[in-house]
């Protein structure tokens, strides 16, 4: 059985980290009475920090365990998650959407929907967002519990309960400040653990050529496991993803990816809090560069794990799930010291993940649902108390959803299923609403309902093998996203044509082409005119690197 055996020095390394992160939150609150968002908001630090925070917000359990699991299960084709499924959307956000978001002064996705459509749309979105958040929170909690299980050998159920208790303590003690520091710090610790681990693992199998030779000889992957773009022909699907290029390009590359990166509250918020328009546009563009190269320390070790760990992904046991690819390598290669760094990075990342989920669940339920619809006009102490109760309830529900996540050998497949149900319809509604001023209030509402229902229906029909048969869980999530997008889009257009449009004046600043009166640029910085700060150049550069890499790994 897979076990990590941390020694005293490893626990010291882990202890130092949490003392630093919780301590900084505590001391900072005493020293400064205002919120400590200033370093993240990029008003004083270079844009690379906001750019890093942008991808760090996404580099949680899903990424580290899930993408490594994808590397193990699908081979090189898993890079599509980065090169098709993330970077183009990040560039699009920086070049096209950010000027709109920033200029329209919209602070969140639900807020936009309330202004653009109506309260019903807002309430529906807030409710589905709350559900999606506790489901994803469960994934992070499960990942946290998995590491505790591997370290201490406790049963996974006990580990989930302990992890939930730890998260509650962490949120209560550290507060928002700790969470923000932790988010950026964990990124560096994770890289410090994964980079040496990958190099050592690569060395042990005889370098890149060794990997190639062994993948070709490996029955589950073979030659196909080395290529990103082969075997994607319609009706001639032979790649490990078992999806054709329409699923990859339109499902993953367009609907899922754009839906996630351009409407996800946590992501967009990083860019919205930047110092000025130029910095906000550069935030996702700068984040795109490290994102391009992350597969090297996440997917590659996953691939090496499936070659070297006997029976990975084959058996039903928890210790042989694809999710354990990285923990297996850690156990095989890292001595005391490095083991401590790796365990610290993983625990910090998953802790940040659950904390972020629970906090946004708390915000949406308390302010977008309770305050907006159920208990209006109470004093602030009431909402504060409600918020605390919602936080505890959120953690309790996460314990249940962690048990759902436990059932998936590859958590990334589960996550993609969730995204295809909750994010894809939202993207359809959002993109049409932004560019088509004729879209009406009820059009928006029914579009969201129809898209979500369609994705869920396809998911169930596929699960019971009725009507739809998709090659793999991954392919199924691509197609669910596509169908949800189409259903949401068609309903929006049809309902809009039969209902009364909103007056143009109400749409000012919310729809493309209907800007507010010209306002002076806030905090304009003359140095933003420098050629190397040009968003078009930064975005173009990322795309060029992307194309070259895709050709190399085709």
């Amino acid at each position, binding site marked *: 059985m897979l076990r990590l055996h941390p020694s005293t*020095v490893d626990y*010291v*390394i882990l202890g*130092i*980290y949490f003392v*630093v992160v919780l301590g*900084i939150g505590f001391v*900072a609150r005493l*020293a*400064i*009475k*205002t*919120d*400590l*968002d*200033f*370093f993240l*908001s990029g*008003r*004083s*630090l270079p844009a690379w*920090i906001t750019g890093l925070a942008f991808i760090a917000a996404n580099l949680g359990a899903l990424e580290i365990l899930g993408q490594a699991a994808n590397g193990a299960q699908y081979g090189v084709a898993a890079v599509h998650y980065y090169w098709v499924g993330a970077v183009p959307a990040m560039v699009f956000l920086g070049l096209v959407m950010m000027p709109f978001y920033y200029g329209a002064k919209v602070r969140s996705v639900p807020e936009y929907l309330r202004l653009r459509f109506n309260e019903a749309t807002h309430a529906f979105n807030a409710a589905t967002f709350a559900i999606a958040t506790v489901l994803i929170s469960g994934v992070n909690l499960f990942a946290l519990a998995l590491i505790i299980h591997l370290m201490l050998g406790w049963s996974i159920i006990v580990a989930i309960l302990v992890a939930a208790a730890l998260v509650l303590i962490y949120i209560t003690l550290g507060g928002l400040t700790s969470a923000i*520091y932790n988010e*950026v*710090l964990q990124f*560096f*610790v994770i890289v*410090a653990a994964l980079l*040496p681990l990958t190099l*050592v*693992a690569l*060395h*042990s199998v005889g370098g890149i050529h060794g990997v190639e030779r062994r993948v070709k000889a490996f029955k589950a992957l073979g030659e196909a496991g080395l290529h990103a773009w082969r075997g994607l022909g319609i009706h001639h699907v032979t790649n490990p993803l078992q999806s054709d290029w329409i699923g990859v390009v339109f499902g993953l590359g367009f609907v899922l990816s754009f839906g996630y990166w351009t409407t996800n509250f946590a992501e967009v918020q990083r860019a919205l809090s930047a*110092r*000025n328009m130029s910095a906000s546009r550069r935030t996702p563009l700068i984040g795109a560069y490290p994102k391009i190269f992350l597969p090297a320390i996440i997917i590659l070790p996953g691939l090496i794990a499936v070659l070297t760990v006997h029976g990975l992904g084959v058996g039903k046991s928890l210790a042989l799930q694809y999710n354990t690819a990285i923990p297996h390598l850690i156990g095989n*290669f*890292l*001595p*005391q*010291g*490095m083991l401590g*760094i790796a365990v610290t990075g993983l625990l910090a990342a998953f802790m940040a993940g659950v904390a972020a989920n629970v906090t946004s669940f708390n915000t949406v339920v308390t302010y977008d649902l309770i305050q907006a619809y159920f208990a209006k006009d109470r004093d602030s102490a009431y909402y504060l108390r409600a918020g605390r109760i919602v936080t505890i309830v959120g953690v309790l529900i996460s314990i249940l959803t962690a048990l759902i996540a436990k059932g998936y050998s590859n958590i990334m497949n589960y996550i993609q299923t969730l995204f295809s149900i909750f994010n894809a319809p939202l993207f359809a509604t959002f993109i049409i609403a932004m560019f088509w001023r004729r879209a009406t209030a009820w059009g928006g509402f029914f579009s969201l309902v129809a898209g979500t229902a369609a994705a869920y229906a396809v998911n169930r029909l596929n699960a019971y093998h009725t009507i739809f048969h998709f090659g793999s869980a991954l392919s199924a999530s691509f197609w669910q996203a596509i169908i949800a997008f189409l259903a949401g889009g068609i309903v929006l257009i049809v309902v809009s044509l039969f209902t009364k449009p909103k007056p143009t004046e109400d749409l000012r600043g919310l729809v493309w082409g209907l800007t507010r009166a010209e306002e002076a640029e*806030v*905090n*304009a*910085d003359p140095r933003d005119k420098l050629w190397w700060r040009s968003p078009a150049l930064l975005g173009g550069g990322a795309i060029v690197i992307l194309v070259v890499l895709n050709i190399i790994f085709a």
Partner: protein
Amino acid sequence: MSSTDKPFGVPGTGTGDEGLMPTGATDEEEIAAARAANRFDIRRLIGGLFILYGLILVALGIFGSHTVKNKAAGINIDLWTGLGMLVFGALMVFWALSRPTMPEPPETRGEGSGRIRRAPAT
């Protein structure tokens, strides 16, 4: 010091239009805020943590058992990663000290103080 004299990014004002806001803060309060901002600079934090971790790893890499030195396919991974973390941590601290978030002593403010420039006068 007038409020338009401040470099952008003073913590606490938060809206990005400091030039228009009467802050009501005294000079001492501003200096204290600047000190705090520098003390909690993420670069110092990363640098400090990495230097500490680097020292622990290098010590293990030198004084550790045969297993510690050879577990990673014969490579002394603690030693090499520790050295890498030391270098990275030192660079972060050096960067934070040479270009602080906030200028601390008042005389370094204004023109010629590196990256910090005046906000456009209103």
